[in-house]
């Protein structure tokens, strides 16, 4: 009882104080806030111990390291919000990255923009295969994409064999994408930010975007409500594939070599980034921006540990603890919401 009364009092005071406090309240309840605070603290502590961490070069490295995972996490969050998942992203990225290397080897004079578009199309094709299998066969995405993880990796193995393409095989302008900066931001990072903003606006502001949340909250209800569930899920897979394709092309630009094993094991990092960023693993809530922040946090930890001269072996353990903390915070938040709903319903009776 006492909690109900307190709750009512606090809500009336908040009402009296007007909009300012309410906005503050909604900011404090943002799911992304804990990630943002953690990220800020991490950067601050590292900066105090090692001022070089926030030098222009340091910031550039931070952003560059995060770029690829940020793009992948944006695509993955699209899927996780609809209660699906794509475990094959690492294999898709590997295929596209090697494909990019092959294109440059075969046709060195092709304009870079054409290669990027080809990579995106290739990724979308792979994502479309996933989406088709999931929506037509009505089998959980976890199983299908576990299968395509192997299939795509096998195709990459068969295609690449022992072959590797190195940075020297690619035009300098292509490599410059991840070296040159605009206003201090590397070009590929700006590309990643543009992707996150575009997907974020789509998710928050458009009808098809909101539909994805509805599908994730309750697929059956969404179907009854008249949402074309299969079509939307298929498009989400397509989009995720396209983003993985983009990430693959950028990977080829950023890293020295691409080969048969490029991107293997990446799927778990990407899912982890989304989970840390507050995307609920069973669908229905979370934001693309959150997932991107999660990716940024996970990659920043690596750099911070190096800057703080902590044993690099601790990195993965810390990532694990972070994921567990994130889902516990998420759980506490949802319990609080449930309690609030109960008390407000009890008042209305």
């Amino acid at each position, binding site marked *: 009882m006492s909690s109900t009364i307190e709750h009512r009092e606090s809500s009336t005071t908040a009402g009296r104080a007007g909009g300012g406090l309410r906005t503050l309240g909604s900011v404090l309840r943002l799911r992304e806030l804990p990630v943002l605070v953690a990220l800020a603290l991490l950067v601050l502590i590292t900066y105090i111990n090692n001022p070089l961490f926030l030098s222009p070069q340091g910031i550039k490295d931070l952003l560059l390291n995060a770029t690829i995972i940020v793009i992948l996490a944006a695509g993955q969050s699209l899927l996780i919000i609809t209660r699906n998942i794509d475990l094959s992203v690492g294999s898709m990225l590997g295929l596209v990255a090697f494909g990019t290397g092959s294109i440059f080897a075969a046709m060195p004079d092709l304009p870079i923009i054409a290669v990027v578009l080809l990579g995106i199309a290739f990724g979308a094709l792979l994502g479309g295969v996933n989406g088709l299998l999931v929506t037509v066969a009505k089998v959980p995405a976890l199983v299908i994409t576990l299968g395509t993880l192997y299939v795509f990796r096998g195709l990459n193995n068969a295609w690449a064999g022992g072959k590797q393409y190195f940075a020297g095989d690619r035009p300098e302008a292509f490599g410059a994408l991840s070296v040159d900066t605009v206003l201090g931001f590397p070009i590929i990072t700006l590309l990643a930010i543009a992707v996150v903003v575009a997907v974020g606006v789509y998710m928050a502001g458009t009808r098809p975007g909101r539909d994805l949340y509805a599908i994730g909250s309750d697929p059956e209800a969404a179907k009854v409500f008249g949402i074309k569930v299969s079509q939307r899920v298929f498009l989400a897979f397509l989009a995720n594939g396209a983003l993985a394709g983009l990430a693959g092309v950028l990977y080829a630009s950023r890293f020295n070599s691409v080969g048969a094993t490029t991107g293997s094991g990446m799927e778990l990092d990407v899912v982890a980034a989304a989970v840390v960023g507050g995307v609920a693993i069973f669908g229905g809530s979370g934001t693309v921006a959150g997932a991107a922040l999660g990716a940024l946090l996970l990659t920043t930890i690596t750099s911070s540990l190096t800057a703080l001269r902590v044993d690099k072996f601790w990195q993965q353990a810390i990532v694990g603890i972070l994921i567990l903390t994130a889902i516990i915070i998420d*759980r506490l938040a949802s319990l609080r919401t449930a309690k609030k709903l109960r008390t407000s319903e009890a008042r209305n009776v």
Partner: protein
Amino acid sequence: MSETTTPRSKPAPPAPVADSTKPLADEPKGRTGAARILASRDAITIYALLAFLIYAAVAIPRFASPVTTGFLLLDVIPVLLIAMPMTLIIITGEIDLSVASTAGLTSALMGVLWAGGMDIWLVLVICLLAGTAAGMFNGFLIAVLGLPSLAVTIGTLALFRGLALVVIGDNAVANFPRALTAFFTSKLGATGIPTVMIGVVLIMLFFGVLLHFTPFGRGLYAMGYSKEAATFVGINVARSKFWLYVGSGVVSALAGIYWTLRYTSARSDNASGLELAVIAAVLLGGVSIFGGKGTIPGVIAGVLLIGTLNYALRLGRVSDVVLITVTGLLLIASVVAPSIGSAIREWRHTRRVRRQFSQNSA
């Protein structure tokens, strides 16, 4: 028309009008008793395994030999071991992605403790305890706090692998007692069957009996269908889940110990990626990822099928790169085929209903 006027005096009409409203689920399945077992999903996996074994024995030179048996079984033992608790966990509708990391952690611990001069038996006991603790940690988060298992075990996947790295770093420990490592690759006489298979069979029997012949096991199926219903009929869902994860931790530790001694090398990245192989094999063995369906014999056949296929392809000089694709295609086919089957059944159902309808109206 007389039926409608005096409904009570007359018996029900002998030939009911074609009923298009009857849902497909109400159609008689038409399989009972032996036929149901012989045509079940996991029986199909077993047939596939047998068919492939016969084919390989006839068509691939040197396949049917004790050497094959030995190498094949030594290779599949880690997957076979971990697949047992994984089957039970997936049947309850949960998942455990942290198994390979637990195996890696025990391997790392084993290396460090042995290199530190501890008695080997004490080392083994501590490793098993570490696996148990890892399982209890998962179980606590999932069963007690009620967190989603997929997210929790992605977290502990990173955490346990990270701890393995913290424990042993980049080092590798190799000088385990010769007698022990020799025992782990020794064979039973001329059969080619590894000696450790005895222990593995005991573990398979344990999980098989637990799942198929105890109330606890039946309860797991109930949990897989509906947690609420299972709670309602008096199954302690949280406690069952907790023990499943503890079991998974213990078996993963055993797999880690086996891995270390078989390859005589304790490293932090031992068994990495094994979780996906195990899950693929379990799903191929007919366990439904939704929970509620699956059997231990089916899973054993699934694990052996992938293992034999890989081994035979390697023996047949098929390049390694095909193996991984075959595994993936098998997995996809095994889940897509049933839904194509149900689509065909649905099509035949509507066709039958239409035909009856046109006959009646004619």
